[in-house]
């Protein structure tokens, strides 16, 4: 072992607390980086509206509905099918108020990109 390595080991032995704090900071930084990477790699960041500036958007998001009565187990009779259809249609109805991504919103007229004909004097 050369002199430099010995010196480093002696320094580490003499500053155990500092070494532990630095290690903890390093681990925290790595874990934070990993969690931020996961946050950006999937669609979570795209759909995260808890950030500042999304107050208006937050109000437009529908609250979760209560769990339905229809279960995955039990006898399947006409009554069960009717209950299913009732819940199925109720859930479908909740989709009605949402945008269907129709083309009108991006038209030249909406974006004010329509060429105005020059007036002849």
């Amino acid at each position, binding site marked *: 072992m050369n002199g430099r390595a010995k010196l480093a080991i002696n320094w580490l032995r003499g500053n155990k607390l500092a070494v532990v704090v630095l290690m903890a900071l390093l681990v925290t930084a790595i874990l934070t980086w990993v969690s931020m990477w996961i946050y950006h790699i999937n669609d979570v960041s795209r759909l995260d509206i808890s950030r500042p500036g999304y107050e*208006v958007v937050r109000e437009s998001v529908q609250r979760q509905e209560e769990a339905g009565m229809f279960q995955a187990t039990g006898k399947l009779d006409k009554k069960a099918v009717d209950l299913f259809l009732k819940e199925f249609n109720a*859930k479908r109805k909740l989709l009605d108020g949402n945008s269907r991504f129709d083309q009108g919103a991006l038209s030249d007229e909406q974006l004010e990109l329509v060429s105005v004909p020059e007036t002849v004097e």
Partner: protein
Amino acid sequence: MRKYLLICCALVIAFSPLVSAESAPLSDAQLNAVLANCSVAQVTLGRIQQSDKPARINRGFRYDSILKLMVKLNTRVAQSRIDAPELLSITSNYEKEIKAFTQTYTTYDDDLSDIQKMDCKEAPTDFYDSLTRVRENRTRLEGHVNQIDFYLDEYEKSVNNVGNILL
């Protein structure tokens, strides 16, 4: 001769995506309109992006919720030994369509973010080409929404058929 044909085919394949992404050239009047109002259009596009977000979140959540309900019914149909393979195939197609909707939204949202960062006064033609791409992706999104509705209608019809068997 065959060699030349192969080269021609390779060139067509290599350049076909570029050709399809480009829109018709802008007329002078259109170019002027883009130059004059593209900054306003970028602000409007930002607003559209903000208003699309809740639609994406709500639709995604509702679609998943309906899928869970469909899986519950499929389980009960299987347990009751009723032969209804169309329920499974519709559920599978519905699930695939939800995934396609999610992926298309990601591309659409990325393009919408990029177009707002563009220097549209410097490159108006590029701006309009990007806008064409955003429109194409929005058309695809609308198509996914319609296709999902179609599968839900088909599923409801099949459930009614199962209900008629049980009568």
